[in-house]
């Protein structure tokens, strides 16, 4: 199903000149990819609301709840395994015309899934959400109410909320300082890819290993009595649960095989499609039961695993390294055996991404607003090195980059692990994606991040080199002891509150309560050290509260939730019989997502300069102005913006404050410990928390008012405040030690598409990237869409549906994000290189 090559078509040149890349993509992709791409029901919310036609799936929740109620005497792992198996055996499944990769988390293409056992708060929200109930609405509402009644008080978060310290719980739930739910079991999960995705084993092999373990364990249980055999009884139950769900997964795949065969034999008249359907049937009979033998089977195994994980626990991220794990099959099929043409392979690669783009679950409003236009931050890792340090890029790396320009999805996106051995041809492919306005791949400095993994969590170098993005930014190995099956979800800090509380004695004027410790009335501070001391105490308090909460969530998750499927694909759990949720045997790979960080630095610098150094204003005047949201103090506000040094201009006055803040926080990161007794480094980045928190963070001395978007990146300068050019930005950021000052540091940059045109543009960018690498920054990403296009898209969104921009840690279609976010992106400084 190839599209006509139209390289000489004059209209292509015109569209290229106008940078209308979406138009070109549409014409260049195959008819199959065009159909499949347009067939997707977008699940990302626009302005917090789901698109018309999107309905919540009630089949899965009903099947799950029915079985959960039925098996009420089983331990949590087995109960979940049986309930999940019931869903997998009975939920409606479908095969979209022209598709070759199977699996969807829901009962129809337009449905979003609903995690009933996560949090009652979310369940209540669903009941009240307009427009998402399937028809007849009244009947659906009745079903939801019944399900909600059952789960009230016994979801994972409900159970945890009962044992949290009440003060911590109230402060956390205020929404002012943290983001996310205080649990990790049904959040993000890292995957032990080294165990199951190397083409070495299928689920039948894992089941055989587990059966052997059970046999040995059972022998011990009839042996000499003693304390050592007591834990074995629970482990046998866990192993049984893993087998139950792995077998259900194999049956689930076989349902697709059966449907494909039925269609081929009874419905399909087109010979070519018949063959495809029979290949689909063969593929789904093969995987996940057995190890994959070719690219289609390898993709299919991976996709089934991802879908099954979501059936088990939603999952908010999609850690993956597709070129590394599927690359050997691509090279074998396309380059060696030639069983696939490049065009056929492109169809598979494109569909592999489209199948991900269509996935979506119901999320609470704060999550929808925090991730405008998408349903999760699904950052796929490509490039990088192999465990021996050699270049891991392969033919599939470039195939993914090329195909992403054809299908232009905003999820998943790529993050490219750059290292000095990356070939120029691969960098050119990366650059083309940016030039086409995708906003991805982002670039990660591999040697720096490998060192970072070793520094913070003690991963050995060979394991550190397997790292994938566990969510948007933080690297996590995919090995037996290196993988952290869960992101510690609620350790997402609204860091601007640190300086806000330091200035208001711990009181939050926005939510109207005493939040942080009493660190003194800032009106009485007489020097900068007093302010910094107050800031330090607020920072320690804020991070400790979030970490305490999520540590407890992780510790209790095996009891409150349980993940038999994830355990069944995690070597550590298969070996030990412990739930993968258990931190036993794991090194720990935690991080605090530090939202809204740079405001601390610019605010502290502004107070130091204008109050304590220049004595132009008093603390009394400043606190009064902040309390009035700068109303009636416009000239003073402008002074705090323009007469104080700002981060990102290579000015040591403020850059030193950045380093001091980071290093003070890094000390605390080593004091706080995770469930594996490891560290809690911070990763400044924003997802789109800079917009979400705009109405939560009060006025600050950097000149912002309550309501203004916060700065967009983890260490990006404020929009328009980086006045000294791109190299100055890099130099400021390069003063940070990206190995030991934190876990990862997000930097957004905006470039001019006209300046980046042609070979000259590429060479300019390469030189810039060399400086980036030399200065040791760990991350950078680019927006390269002109103001003209973005303004036109604001005026006429229908015509510009496919324009993609980099928001913060993710990309989104420009028309799917709020006006405030759009304006914020447009006002980011465009740097001429």
């Amino acid at each position, binding site marked *: 199903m190839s599209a006509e090559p139209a390289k000489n078509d004059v209209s292509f040149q015109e569209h290229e000149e106008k940078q209308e890349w979406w138009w070109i993509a549409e014409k260049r992709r195959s008819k199959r990819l065009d159909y499949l791409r347009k067939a997707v029901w977008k699940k990302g919310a626009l302005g917090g609301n789901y698109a018309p036609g999107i309905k919540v799936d009630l089949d899965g929740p009903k099947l799950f709840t029915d079985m959960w109620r039925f098996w009420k005497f089983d331990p949590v792992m087995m109960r979940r395994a049986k309930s999940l198996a019931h869903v997998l055996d009975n939920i409606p499944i479908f095969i979209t015309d022209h598709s070759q990769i199977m699996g969807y988390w829901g009962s129809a293409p337009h449905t979003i899934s609903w995690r009933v056992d996560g949090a009652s708060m979310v369940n209540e929200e669903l009941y009240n959400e307009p427009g998402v109930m399937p028809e007849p609405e009244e009947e659906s509402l009745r079903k939801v109410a019944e399900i909600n009644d059952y789960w009230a008080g016994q979801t994972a978060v409900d159970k945890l909320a009962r044992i949290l310290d009440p003060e911590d719980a109230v402060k956390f739930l205020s929404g002012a300082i943290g983001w996310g739910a205080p649990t990790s079991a049904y959040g993000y999960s890292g995957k032990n890819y080294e165990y199951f995705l190397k083409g070495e084993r299928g689920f039948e092999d894992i089941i055989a290993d587990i059966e052997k373990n059970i046999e040995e364990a059972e022998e011990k249980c009839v042996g000499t009595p003693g304390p050592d055999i007591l834990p074995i009884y629970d482990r046998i139950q866990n192993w049984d649960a893993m087998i139950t769900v792995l077998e259900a997964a194999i049956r689930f795949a076989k349902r697709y095989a059966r449907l494909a065969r039925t269609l081929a034999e009874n419905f399909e008249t087109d010979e070519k499609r018949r063959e495809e359907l029979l290949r689909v049937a063969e593929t789904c009979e093969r995987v996940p039961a057995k190890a994959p033998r070719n690219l289609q089977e390898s993709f299919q195994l991976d996709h089934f695993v991802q879908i099954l994980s979501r059936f088990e626990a939603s999952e908010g991220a999609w850690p993956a390294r597709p070129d590394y794990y599927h690359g050997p099959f691509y090279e074998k099929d396309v380059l060696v055996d030639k069983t696939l043409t490049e065009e056929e392979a492109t169809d598979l690669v494109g569909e592999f991404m489209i199948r991900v783009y269509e996935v979506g679950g119901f999320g609470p409003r704060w999550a929808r607003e925090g991730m405008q236009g998408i349903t999760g931050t699904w950052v796929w890792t490509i490039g990088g090195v192999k465990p021996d340090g050699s270049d891991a890029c392969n033919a599939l790396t470039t195939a993914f980059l090329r195909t992403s320009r054809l299908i232009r999805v905003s999820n998943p996106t790529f993050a490219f692990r750059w290292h000095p051995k990356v070939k120029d041809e691969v960098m050119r492919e990366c650059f083309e994606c940016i030039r086409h306005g995708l906003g991805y791949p982002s670039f990660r400095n591999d040697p720096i991040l490998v060192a970072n993994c070793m520094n913070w969590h003690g991963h050995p170098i060979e394991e550190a080199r397997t790292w994938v993005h566990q969510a948007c930014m933080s690297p996590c190995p995919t090995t037996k002891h290196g993988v952290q099956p869960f992101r510690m979800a609620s350790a997402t800090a609204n860091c601007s509150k640190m300086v806000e509380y330091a200035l208001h004695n711990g009181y939050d004027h926005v939510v109207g309560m005493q939040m942080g410790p009493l660190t003194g009335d800032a009106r009485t501070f007489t020097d900068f050290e007093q302010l910094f001391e107050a800031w330090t105490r607020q920072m320690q308090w804020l991070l400790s509260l979030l970490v305490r909460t999520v540590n407890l969530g992780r510790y209790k998750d095996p009891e409150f939730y349980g993940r038999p499927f994830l355990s069944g694909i995690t070597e550590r759990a298969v070996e030990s019989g412990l739930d993968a949720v258990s931190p036993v045997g794991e090194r720990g790979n935690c991080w605090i997502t530090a939202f809204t960080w740079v405001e601390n630095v610019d605010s502290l610098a502004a107070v130091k300069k204008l109050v304590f150094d220049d004595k132009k204003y008093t603390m009394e005047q400043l606190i009064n102005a902040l309390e009035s949201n700068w109303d009636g103090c416009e000239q003073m506000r*402008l002074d705090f*913006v323009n007469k104080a040094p700002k981060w990102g201009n290579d000015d040591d006055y403020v850059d030193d404050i950045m380093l001091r803040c980071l290093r003070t926080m890094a000390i605390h990161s080593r004091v706080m410990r995770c469930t594996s007794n490891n560290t809690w480094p911070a990763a400044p980045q924003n997802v789109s928390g800079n917009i979400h928190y705009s109405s939560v963070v009060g006025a600050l001395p950097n000149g*912002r*008012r309550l*309501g203004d978007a916060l700065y967009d990146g983890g260490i990006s300068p404020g929009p328009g405040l980086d006045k000294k050019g791109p190299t100055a930005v890099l130099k400021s950021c390069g003063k940070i030690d990206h190995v030991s000052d934190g876990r990862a540091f997000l930097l957004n940059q905006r470039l001019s598409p*006209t300046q980046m045109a042609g070979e000259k543009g590429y060479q300019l960018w390469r030189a810039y990237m060399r400086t980036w690498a030399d200065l040791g920054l760990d991350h950078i990403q680019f927006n390269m869409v002109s*103001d003209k296009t973005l303004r036109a898209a604001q005026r006429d969104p229908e015509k510009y549906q496919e324009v993609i921009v980099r928001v913060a840690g993710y990309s989104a279609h420009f028309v799917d994000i709020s006006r405030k976010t759009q304006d914020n992106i447009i006002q980011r*400084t465009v740097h001429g290189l």
Partner: protein
Amino acid sequence: MKCTECSYEAPVPSFRYLYNVRIDASLTLRQCPQCQVRLVVDELAGEATQRLDDGDAPWGKSAGIEGLAEDAI
């Protein structure tokens, strides 16, 4: 301050503050409590200068763009 659309007059803070995407500028967006229109406000002068429509660029070009080729904007 006076609304440019419905002429409603009140002190600036009575107009609901929306946002300012360039904190180095004294230009903000506020909403008229009477006709709900989004207004572009010069905070130094305490004056509403225009209503905001889709695609309007009250803060002008992106920062940094002045040094670049004209067609980049």
